[in-house]
């Protein structure tokens, strides 16, 4: 009997089996983790090839088929998200190898790998799932693993932030579950295909509202962002990178999918979402300007970027929604790569200097040049300077808004850009050490994985801008945005 | 006839439960309350279980109901003991009136 392994199943099972192995054999957990990530990446490449040649593919698990069973479905968008997760995840893992190598981190190392691989299982599961209850289970896996990673350092600040994060995560998931209940009440089925053809009704609107609020909470859209800055800023560097770069994207992805399958009933609602996004851009910008610690600033910038993605989503209003989804998808990818790079380099800077107070950045005797360079590169993409992927995302956002005559969204985007230049400049000013040099400079010693990985990511965030067109056309495979040509 | 006997047994059991509940609410201190609870509920549950066993009409079900009664009785006695023990250890006052 030959056993055939399907890439979609493997994309979920590979990290799961890796997590089990890493938990059983803590001594070689790092090795197992890296091997698992390489294998998962290979599986994703196989899947991408299949999707490229055949379009969207569906796998009925257990052979039952939706709605009774659960289908896995891969299209351009989900494979793009899988690829983002795997690539960013692999590079962050390389950095983690280095930053968790000390004896003091033996315990962190032992638990980092199984938790991270479970997190990967959950995220891959979300990107391939077509069943809303299955999504609920997956976001709970993500939540537990992510909270475990948040409190890896065991500091009191991290534990406090982790507890807040836990409350927000559970509440978000439970709102989602209540929405699942209402969808079942109305439709009697829980698969995406059943949602598309449903007539709108009060119960469905209630379900959609509950689920969307739950996802807002988990993705930290203003004003439900209260848990994010502390959680992301107080985690250890690799965990921050994973949380900010990847984990919030899972909830965003679910939001994108939901709004594709259950069209938002009203333009007012879309505008409201845009207003919340604009609020995030402004409030997050102000807080980033006031932040005292580097990692806090980076965490607030995540709030801003999430807001921007929602602005991108909202800007097209009723007409041409598909376009705005593309801008949002591009911004998600760009932010995932750049933010992971930025958190890793911020962690490096903190490790080298010994603190991450912005106002004292230029007083240290150590100069972590590479990390600072990486931080600046990542900032280029986050600010949205050409030719980075962030620029393409913002550009397609503004282009669409101009075409549709939504000038207010352009104003919000521009304001966000200006503010991000302002708050990142605070950091650059610290890097440049203009006149406050008090001590002789010690250059950073040599290369390390912990520098190479974020540098690769940051360079990638910029270089990907050149490949925006093929990325966009790949994302469109299988019509993830519900629009056939 | 059987039904009548069963119903009156269950009714009597319910009276004991109500008495136990009233005692739980009205008695002054934790030991009196436990007394009301264990005495009334032990007998009340036994009566209800007997009534239901009569109604069930099959030996197997009656046996299972008997088992349930037995384990509930043992568990509730142990729990009451633990509560009383804890209350005494932590210096819970015995009320005078």
């Amino acid at each position, binding site marked *: 009997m*030959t*056993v*055939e*392994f*399907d890439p979609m*199943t493997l994309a979920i*099972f590979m990290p*799961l*089996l890796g*997590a*089990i192995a890493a*938990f*059983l054999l803590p001594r070689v957990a790092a090795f197992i983790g890296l091997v698992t990530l390489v294998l998962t990446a290979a599986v994703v490449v196989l899947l991408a090839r299949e999707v490229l040649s055949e379009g969207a593919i569906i*796998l*009925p*698990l*257990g*052979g*039952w088929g939706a*709605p*009774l*069973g*659960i289908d896995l479905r891969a299209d351009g968008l989900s494979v793009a998200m899988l690829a983002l997760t795997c690539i960013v995840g692999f590079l962050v893992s390389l950095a983690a190898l280095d930053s968790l190598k000390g004896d003091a981190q033996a315990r*962190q190392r032992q*638990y980092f790998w199984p*938790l991270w691989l*479970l997190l990967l299982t959950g995220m891959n*599961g979300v990107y391939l799932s077509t*069943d809303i*209850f*299955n999504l609920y*289970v*997956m976001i*709970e*896996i993500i939540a*537990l*693993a992510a909270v*475990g990673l948040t*409190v*890896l350092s*065991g500091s009191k600040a991290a*534990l406090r932030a982790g507890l807040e994060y836990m409350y927000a995560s559970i509440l978000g998931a439970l709102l989602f579950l*209540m929405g699942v209940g*209402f969808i079942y*009440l*109305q439709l*009697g*089925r829980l698969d995406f295909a059943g949602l598309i053809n449903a007539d709108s*009704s*009060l*119960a469905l*609107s*209630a379900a959609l509202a509950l689920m969307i609020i739950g996802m807002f909470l988990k993705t930290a859209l203003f004003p439900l962002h209260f848990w994010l800055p502390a959680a992301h800023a107080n985690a250890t560097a690799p965990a921050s990178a994973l949380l900010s770069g990847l984990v919030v994207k899972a909830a965003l992805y679910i939001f994108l999918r939901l709004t594709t399958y259950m069209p938002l009933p009203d333009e007012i609602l879309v505008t409201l979402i845009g207003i919340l996004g604009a609020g995030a851009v402004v409030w997050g910008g102000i807080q980033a300007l006031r932040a005292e610690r580097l990692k806090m600033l980076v965490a607030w910038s995540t709030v801003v970027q999430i807001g921007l993605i929602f602005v991108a989503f909202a800007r097209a209003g009723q007409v041409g929604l598909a376009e705005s989804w593309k801008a949002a998808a591009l911004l998600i990818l760009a932010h995932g790569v750049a933010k992971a790079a930025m958190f890793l380099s911020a962690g490096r800077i903190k490790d080298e200097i010994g603190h991450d107070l912005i106002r004292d950045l230029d007083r240290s005797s150590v100069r972590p040049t590479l990390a600072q360079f990486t931080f600046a590169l990542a900032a280029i993409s986050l600010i949205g300077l050409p030719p980075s992927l962030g620029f393409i995302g913002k550009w397609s956002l503004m282009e669409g808004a101009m075409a549709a005559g939504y000038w207010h969204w352009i104003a919000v985007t521009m304001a966000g850009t200006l503010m991000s230049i302002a708050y990142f400049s605070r950091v650059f000013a610290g890097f440049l050490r203009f006149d406050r040099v008090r001590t002789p400079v010690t250059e950073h010693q040599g290369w390390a994985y912990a520098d190479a990985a974020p540098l690769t990511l940051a360079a990638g965030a910029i270089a990907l801008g050149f490949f925006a067109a093929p990325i966009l056309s790949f994302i469109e495979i299988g019509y993830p945005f519900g629009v056939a040509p | 006839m059987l039904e009548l006997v069963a119903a009156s047994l269950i009714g009597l059991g319910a009276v004991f439960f109500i008495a136990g509940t009233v005692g739980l609410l009205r008695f002054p201190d934790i030991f009196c309350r436990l007394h009301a609870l264990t005495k009334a509920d032990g007998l009340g549950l036994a009566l209800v279980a007997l009534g239901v066993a009569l109604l069930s009409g099959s030996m197997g079900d009656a046996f299972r109901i008997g088992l349930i009664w037995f*384990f509930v009785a*043992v*568990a509730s006695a*142990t729990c009451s*003991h*633990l509560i009383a*023990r804890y209350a005494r250890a932590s210096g819970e006052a015995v009320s005078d009136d």
Partner: protein
Amino acid sequence: MTDPLVIFDLLLAASVVALAVAVLGVRDLFAAIVLFVIFGLLSALSWVRLSAPDVALAEAAIGTGVTGALLLKTLHHLRFVSGTLDQQAALSVTPLLPVPGAVIWANAAFCGLITLGLAAAFLGAPQAGPGFDPLVADAMPQSGVEHPVTGVLLNFRAYDTLMEVVVLLAAVIAVWQIERGMSDAPAPVMGEVWQGFARLALPAIVVVGTYLLWVGAEAPGGAFQGGAVLAAVGLLLLLTRAYVPRPAHRGIARGAFVLGTGAFAAVALLVAGGGRVAFEYPPEHAKSLILLIEGLVTISIAITLAALFHGREPVALSTQGGRNDT
């Protein structure tokens, strides 16, 4: 002529809601937990009324029993570290920042609006509307089991169930990760009556748990309910100190945690082939495969739940209480 059961339903529903309010309203935390346990048991009773005995069993055993034990253990620990273990009623032992009154009222108003909206939406939804029933009825003969809920859990939606076991695994890893270097609250001394009860109850619980697992194929019960009941054995053993986790047992514990997940995942993957996909059990082996998975998963669930109750990973005595084992 109203059905007398409707009155019972109304009373039960009113008690459930009143208890929910009381859980949040009562000042003493211990009382809140006890009320929560009663709330859980009455919810389980409501679900029996809605002809969902499996769910009621699971809620009573896991949602109320195990959760209640976890909550009480946590309260005990909190009172220990805050030095209020000897006081009669520790009120709020874990204060958060005080929430301004205006915020509370705004939240309450917001929740009131949500309630009205949900109630309206519930009324608007078709009552006893469409469902999976016909699909399940069609597929049951090929499922390998007779009890529909077990069929759904371990065959039609086995993927969800696997992921649910993964959630348990993630929880126990996270708990081991989180709890470290904490001094243990002294276990209460329970006395001889308790020891005698444990001797009597232990074998009975083992029998009940195994029975629940075994009967799951054709009647209410199954891996989760059975596992939760068996976890009670673990709780009893831990509470009576008949079993004290030792550092040397860590490897075995790790193995036990992943046993169910690993076996489930392996079976799910290995049945693929010959035109079948993952989780598609060959019909002739479906029953034995499901029983195998259920048995192993039950062991994992029981040990995982007991470990979640125990909390931290067993550590060597020398590092116990030390802060430097980060």
